[in-house]
């Protein structure tokens, strides 16, 4: 890595890039010196911050304000000037329900189905994924041959794109796919996994865990490796049983990391869209429709683009995420201080 900055580098390619780079630096230096003379050295940090903050402003902070504005206006126009103010009507539509437990009784039944599905999805996805990540991290933390290889294996799916992940599993789970071949060879019947609502939800959760657990395993493994080894040596000398070591040493010391992983995976799970959308398309019917898919479809994919309703739903989602993120930051801060 450091060789690239080495001017005596023998590699002609890196010589060329560093030559280009220094030419570019010299070229930009002319106006930059002008700027520095104009605003003074003291104010140069603002100049360096400017591009980044401009991007954040244009694509995060301004949109955040517009999001709220969209949610209190109606019509199907995209530009703000053409949208009539409707007050909290959009929120009224979203929350207009006979019974919150029964999405069919709601004016926006898809929104509530999305909420319901997201709750179910998040609950099972997060608990099972944290459990399996923890188990995998514990196993990988043992003195095992080929540990680097096994760690890499569990991490591999994390790098795959959600579309690729979904297509891999769609191919396995399809009617004449590998899994049904296995089932029939064991004397069972073929199952149409994406026609049965419960199976579709099960596989949405399973595939999502498959794709992401490697990431959380890695964080937990880092936490496990930070536990002082002498604690384990002392336990071994006292011939402490494995289960006791786990409950009395490992888990209590891993607890801060576990909390962070829990909240982090919660934040991600609530926003799940990509792999489930490609895998099931939200179906059958709306059995695996998650809240982000509702927002996406309301704004972009439906015949009538309802930006106001989509924004109102995303503001609701934003509030939930805001609370979750505050909890996460507090936990991270506490585990850093501890």
């Amino acid at each position: 890595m450091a060789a690239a900055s080495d001017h005596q580098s023998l590699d002609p390619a890196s010589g060329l890039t560093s030559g280009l780079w220094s030419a570019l630096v010299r070229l930009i230096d002319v106006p930059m010196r002008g700027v520095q003379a104009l605003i003074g050295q003291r104010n140069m940090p603002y100049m360096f911050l400017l591009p980044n903050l401009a991007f954040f402003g244009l694509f995060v902070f301004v949109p955040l304000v517009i999001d709220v504005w969209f949610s209190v206006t109606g019509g199907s126009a995209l530009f703000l000037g053409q949208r009539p103010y409707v007050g909290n009507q959009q929120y009224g539509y979203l929350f207009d329900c006979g019974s919150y437990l029964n999405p069919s009784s709601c004016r926006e039944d898809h929104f509530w189905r999305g909420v319901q599905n997201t709750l179910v999805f998040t609950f099972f996805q997060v608990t099972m994924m944290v459990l399996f990540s923890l188990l995998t991290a514990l196993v990988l933390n043992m003195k095992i041959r080929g540990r680097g290889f096994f760690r890499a294996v569990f991490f591999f799916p994390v790098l795959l794109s959600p579309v690729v992940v979904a297509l891999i599993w769609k191919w396995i789970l399809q009617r004449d796919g590998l899994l049904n071949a296995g089932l029939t060879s064991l004397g069972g019947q073929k199952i149409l996994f994406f026609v049965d609502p419960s199976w579709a939800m099960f596989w949405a959760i399973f595939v999502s865990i498959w794709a992401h657990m490697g990431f959380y395993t890695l964080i937990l493994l880092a936490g496990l490796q930070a536990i002082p080894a002498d604690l384990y040596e002392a336990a071994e000398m006292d011939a402490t049983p494995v289960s006791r070591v786990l409950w009395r040493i490992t888990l209590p010391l891993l607890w801060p990391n576990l909390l962070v992983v829990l909240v982090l995976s919660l934040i991600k799970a609530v926003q799940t869209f990509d792999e489930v959308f490609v895998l099931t398309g939200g179906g059958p019917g709306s059995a695996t429709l998650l809240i982000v898919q509702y927002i996406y479809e309301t704004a972009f994919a439906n015949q009538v683009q309802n930006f106001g309703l989509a924004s109102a739903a995303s503001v609701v989602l934003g509030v939930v995420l805001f609370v979750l993120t505050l909890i996460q930051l507090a936990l991270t801060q506490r585990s850093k201080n501890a």
Partner: protein
Amino acid sequence: MSVVEALSRTRGGKRLHWTDYAAYGYLVLGVFLMFGPVVWLALSSFKTQASLLEFPPTLLPMSQKEAVVSGYDKPLPLFTVTLPDGSKKLMGQVRRVGLQAQMVDPNAPDKPINVAIGQRQPIRELAFATSNYTDPLRQFAFTRYLGNSVFVTIVATIITLLINSMAAFALSIYEFPGRNAAMVGIIGTLMIPITVILVPVYLVVTSLGLINSLWAVILPGAATPTGVFLLRQYMMTLPRDLIEAARMDKASEWQIYARIVLPLSLPALAVLAIFSVMWRWNEFLWPLAVLTKSESYTLQIGLNAFQGELQVQWQYLLAMTVLTLIPVSLVFVFLQRFITTGIANTGLK
């Protein structure tokens, strides 16, 4: 020494505990579950359309053996035929009519005989249908999607590296009024993912006239809080004397950034570059919302559109999926160490 004993020895010379056996069992199962589906995808992608429709599927891509028989224009599929006298013979099939098939002996092509279809077994051989890979390159816009994805990934990564390193430089080297406010603002963006501001970012991008342009995909995610903090953490560890010395030599602040801090931060920049490439290559929701014309599709959007068609052409879809995961797999093989340490250090994906 028995085999079990030899295998169960550890480096320390101690015998394995039952937990070790359980651990290895778990890990081997994990290898099957994590790698198996990808291997199955890769194997399937070399099957012909006909053998993809077979049930139960074969593990390896098999297809029927064919041979050229004199007197026939096309190569004939080969079968093992059980003749009435009980002997078996290798024959080519000329045509099939209902339950009867007209078969011919390749060595005696002028005397075709009729055989009941139950009396013949296809001869199969291992064959890789590479046309699954070459056809989409010619017939579909696959190369276009690939080009778009490469363009987005490279340009976005360059912009990300540049603007985030500039911000990290300002936040790590200088003390200035408003620094904390800027930090809080940047951390704050962590709480506002694209899922929350999908519609208004679409408005911003439309106002800039970028709809259906690849810049609409590149720009909104270019500034990232993860990037700023990853780089800032690294830059804070750089020695300050170097910077002071450069100022003595009348270096401008820009030169300090570009000539001193940036080259010294290469390890951190490399980690951010890898992350950025992965993010951009795999990005889905935002491009899906903003790219509506197929000529501006990225690979991921193209793949999704292709799988959503009424008649899914699995033989091409599988091959394109394999092509899509190759770059990421290369990153995995060569740069996995950077990514894993990056995640372990920052806890961010």
